[in-house]
């Protein structure tokens, strides 16, 4: 028997029982749509985490003033800044370190003309741009010389530029940060959201010296809340962490057995944890959706079994006029496959459509990948074969005369 005849026969059988075929397919439609949608959401989340990690900068440490735990009791970190600008400079001179930037963070109100905007202000050094992998949209970053002389210059993020200046070019303009006038010398290229959901473009960077003198009125001069450090490579991260610890303990004269007055955190490792959490979540989502796909397959088997029983006489007639066992086997297998693959096709449309809706309405990032589509088609095919085979074999195993005699 030729293949097109099989398709024709299957199509005819399925269109004869439209409602039944539709309901059977529905199981596959829902299963495939669920798989596509869940994978799209999971992969969207993974892609977002990945891009956040990339925007954060790579091979990063953050060194915070204060200890995570002191004598077994947890203390607030960063309350009494123990880190100095000289610490940051000393860290930069370590062999495995690429860049090291002391940071003094805070919030402030910015004013330009009649417009004002509240944002986070970071006092730091030019190394910060290296560490955080910031590039410039326009203008330039401030220099070490600006830091040394406490220059009143600022580099602003994209959000700040938009809010304060609109379409105007901010470079060369004077803004007021907590009343103190600063000249905008550059605009940062956009980065988007960070891992914790903050908008990284809503920020102002100024020389750390100027921030402490003019904005925060900090009494603890030359001290930083934290230092951002970039290691030369991922491989050297462990070595870098050890040497930073040794250096700071030495510089802060911390004896054996005494607690550190600083904390070194491997941000890249934290990010990796976030990424693997997302990966596990998307796997879980996919696994739950896959269960519904299997349930859809069982629905197909159920209906195929009913169909074989109902059509025993038809099978007998077909056998009497020359259908071989494998013709009957193929007839029912192709029918099951047609059900599962058409169901899969409709499910794909719903899944992709649903993913699009989720992106539009819920604002979640989604990613429908070719791999997930191919996987859904492949699994549907296997389900058709797997759940169609048993009923088909039952039909093919019928004795022609018994089948013919059945009512």
């Amino acid at each position, binding site marked *: *028997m*030729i293949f*097109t*005849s099989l398709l*024709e*026969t299957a199509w*005819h059988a399925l269109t*004869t029982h439209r409602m039944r075929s539709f309901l059977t397919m529905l199981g596959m439609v829902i299963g495939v749509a669920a798989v596509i949608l869940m994978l799209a959401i999971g992969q969207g989340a993974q892609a977002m985490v990945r891009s956040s990690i990339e925007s954060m900068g790579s091979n990063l440490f953050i060194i915070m003033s204060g200890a995570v735990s002191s004598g077994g009791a947890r203390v607030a970190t960063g309350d009494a800044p123990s880190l100095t600008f000289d610490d940051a400079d000393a860290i930069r001179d370590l062999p495995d370190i690429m860049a090291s930037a002391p940071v003094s963070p805070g919030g402030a109100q910015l004013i330009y003309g009649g417009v004002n905007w509240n944002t986070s202000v970071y006092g730091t050094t030019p190394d910060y741009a290296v560490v955080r992998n910031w590039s410039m949209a326009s203008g330039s970053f401030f220099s070490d010389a600006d830091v040394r002389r406490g220059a009143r210059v600022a580099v602003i993020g994209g959000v700040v530029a938009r809010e304060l200046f609109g379409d105007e070019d901010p470079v060369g303009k004077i803004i007021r940060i907590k009343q103190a006038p600063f000249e905008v010398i550059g605009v940062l290229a956009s980065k988007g959201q960070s891992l914790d959901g903050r908008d990284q473009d809503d920020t102002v960077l100024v020389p750390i010296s100027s921030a402490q003198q003019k904005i925060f009125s900090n009494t603890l001069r030359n001290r930083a809340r934290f230092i951002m450090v970039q290691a030369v490579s991922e491989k050297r991260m462990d070595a870098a962490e050890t040497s930073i610890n040794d250096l700071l303990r030495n510089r802060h004269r911390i004896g054996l057995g005494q607690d550190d007055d600083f904390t070194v955190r491997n941000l890249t490792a934290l990010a990796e944890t976030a990424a693997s959490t997302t990966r596990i979540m998307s796997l879980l989502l996919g696994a739950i959706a896959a269960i519904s796909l299997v349930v859809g397959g069982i629905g197909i088997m159920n209906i195929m079994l009913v169909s074989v029983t109902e059509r025993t*006489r*038809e099978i*007998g*007639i*077909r*056998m*009497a*006029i*020359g*259908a*071989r*066992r*494998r*013709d009957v086997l193929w007839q029912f297998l192709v029918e099951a496959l047609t059900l599962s693959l058409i169901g899969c096709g409709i499910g794909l449309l719903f899944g992709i459509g649903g993913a699009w809706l989720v992106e539009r309405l819920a604002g979640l990032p989604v990613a429908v990948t070719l791999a997930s589509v191919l996987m859904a088609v492949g699994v549907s095919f296997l389900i058709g074969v797997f759940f169609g085979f048993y009923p088909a074999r039952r039909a093919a195993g019928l*004795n*022609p*005369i018994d089948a*013919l005699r059945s009512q």
Partner: protein
Amino acid sequence: MAVPGAPLIEVANLEKDYPTGAGVFQALRGVSLSIAEGEFVAIMGASGSGKSTFMNLLGCLDRPTRGSYHLDGQDVGRLSSDQLAALRNREIGFVFQGFNLLPKLTALDNVALPLMYAGMGREARRRQAQAMLERVGLGERSHHTPLQLSGGQQQRVAIARALATRPRIIFADEPTGNLDSETSRQVMDLFSRLNREEGITLVLVTHEADIAAYARRCIRFQDGQVIEDTTVAQAVA
């Protein structure tokens, strides 16, 4: 693989047992006979006499418990179920009392069905099926489904289906059982013509004497055995 001079159908000591709750029921108890190509044979007997069982064995729909069956010199007992299916498709046509058409298919598709299993392409088999329908006088009805046809018309569609692969034998099991006398006559005339004009071997199971009268040879069954085998017109063979 025809052996020259050999009968088309030859059975020897054919037996068929059916297991029942009260032991084994012997539907056939040693039947030996032969049928030559071109014969028109009626098989008669009361219900339960074994005539239908015998026809199902001859039609390769069932296998005998004991005994041998040679069709065209070929030992049918040695064939696999797929080979039997191919044999049914190529050499045998069936006509049943209840027509056994597929109700959702048109007359044309019903007639084309055996050709599909013969591996013929769609267009070719539709052409041939249409020709067969015209042969039984239903060329105009090819797109009707069985439910839109009368009993006599349905049986003619079934005959067209039996003829589709141009088989050498047609087995008909009570073909007029569900028809009135006028349509019975039409169907029997059609059978007679096919036998006379095309030399198709016909084996007809019936319990009605007037239907059996169309045949030239009558084999009578009782309790699973042949009790009478008479040939009406010796001249035709």
